[in-house]
């Protein structure tokens, strides 16, 4: 019997090998649309869903990828600034980077980094139940999202510069700094409407213990360490 119910991309754990949502009929959104649990929504509705999840789920975390972490071309600094503005509006949020995609063996520090070869380790260790991927190249984001859906209960949000991601629970395509700022504004709107964030009493961005250790090592305190071309 053919299952005619639309496939829903919900938080896992879904099992070792979850199907790619695209093979289950989930289609990518057009410009001005978003994806929520596998269904097409308007961009504004998608932003509000993302905002609500970020404010209410446990241990919200932003995973910036290389496309926003490294100022490799004009415009990156602007997008990076918009991501930091977003973080500032989510009480208790953490920022754990994915600086590149090289494998890290024999052991990663899940409080310092998320790696596409085993993103579940970072999610599990930090008990993250909602996260945002931004600035990750799509082919690595796709595999990362599937692994997270397979083995964790994390709600995944993707702010994608390209066409969006079927395998995240909420996805916004063609996402530049304006769209990131629109998400920030959606969060402000929910707060104005009376939504009390889960970590309302925890102001600002929280550093992980490893980040605090690095910070106390003074390695970076004399600036952003930029190299001249």
């Amino acid at each position, binding site marked *: 019997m053919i299952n005619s119910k639309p496939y829903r991309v919900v938080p896992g754990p879904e099992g070792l090998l979850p199907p790619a949502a695209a093979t289950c009929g989930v289609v990518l959104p057009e410009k001005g649309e978003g994806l929520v649990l596998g269904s097409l929504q308007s961009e504004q509705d998608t932003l509000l869903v993302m905002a609500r999840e970020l404010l209410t789920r446990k241990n919200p975390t932003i995973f910036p990828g290389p496309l926003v972490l490294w100022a490799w071309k004009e415009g990156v600094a602007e997008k990076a600034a918009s991501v*930091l503005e977003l973080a500032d509006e989510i009480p208790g949020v953490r920022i754990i*980077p994915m600086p590149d995609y090289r494998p890290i063996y024999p052991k990663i520090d899940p409080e310092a980094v998320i790696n596409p070869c085993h993103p579940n380790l970072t999610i599990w260790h930090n008990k993250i139940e909602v996260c945002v991927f931004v600035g990750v190249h799509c082919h690595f984001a796709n595999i990362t999202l599937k692994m997270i859906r397979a083995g964790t209960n994390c709600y995944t949000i993707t702010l994608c510069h390209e066409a969006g991601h079927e395998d995240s629970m909420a996805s916004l395509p063609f996402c530049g700094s304006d769209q990131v700022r629109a998400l920030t504004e959606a969060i402000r709107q929910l707060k104005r409407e009376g939504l009390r964030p889960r970590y309302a009493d925890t102001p600002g961005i929280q550093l992980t213990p*490893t980040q605090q250790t690095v910070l106390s090592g003074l390695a970076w305190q004399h600036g952003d*360490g930029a*190299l001249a071309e």
Partner: protein
Amino acid sequence: MALRTLNVAPGFMRFMPKEYQDLVEKGPFGRQIKVTDLGTFKEVLEEHPMCEGCAMAFFIRLSLAALPNPEHTVMVGTAGCGRLAISQAAIPFVYGNYCDTNGVATGLKRGLQIRFPDQHKDVVVMAGDGGLSDIGFSQVMHSWFRKEKFTTIMLDNEVYGNTGGQESGMTRKGEVVKMAPLGKQFEKIDMLGLAQTSGVAYIARLTPTNPSRVFSTIRKAVLIAREVGPTYVQAYTSCNIEYSIAPEKVLDDARQVEKERYGFVEIMSDEAKAYLERIDAESKA
């Protein structure tokens, strides 16, 4: 990669792992590293999952530190022990399918030349004896015949160490290894001779016993490949697991092998010699 990709976006440095902060602030990018600088800067490869005492890991570490412009280098490798470390280094790495490293490197080098006509982009193939002298043999040879301008470095541990000890073309005749209990029936392939016949511009054979020599050899090979033609470095990097060498004896073994049958060899074309003299004179001017 380029130097400008090594700038962390404003505001994000404090979230970066220590390793990346160190790479940005104390890495080898954009400056010339000498062998005596080892230990004073953040190397592109530190942690790796290779076996204790692995000579190959040591050679790879030295080779990566010796690259003249790591920020403008792309490594190409394939299945085998070496790529476990190479792929983890802070240098872009392309995983070629078994057999096609030198084909991949060819396309990569040509593409980079078109995309960056004013900037040398170094392509370095680094793979094992199985990857280059057996399964990738044809593509290695043809890249040499075509005079492709990139460096090929063979990590010669004289066995398929990653898969349990099968004999390779570079295993010595008569050698008994775990999956070749009768001993190898044929001679070790003379890759140096084949490289010479193919007109490779710079050929070297060495062991990791002398870090200064590794530095100068790798640097010459990469520089010559920029303008003159293909270069080939063959390094004895014993598999201490398959050849049952105690970790602390690995360098003793390398010294012994170097003395007996793997002495330093360097063969350079006249054009390559002239090129090195020219850039040397230019750097002193």
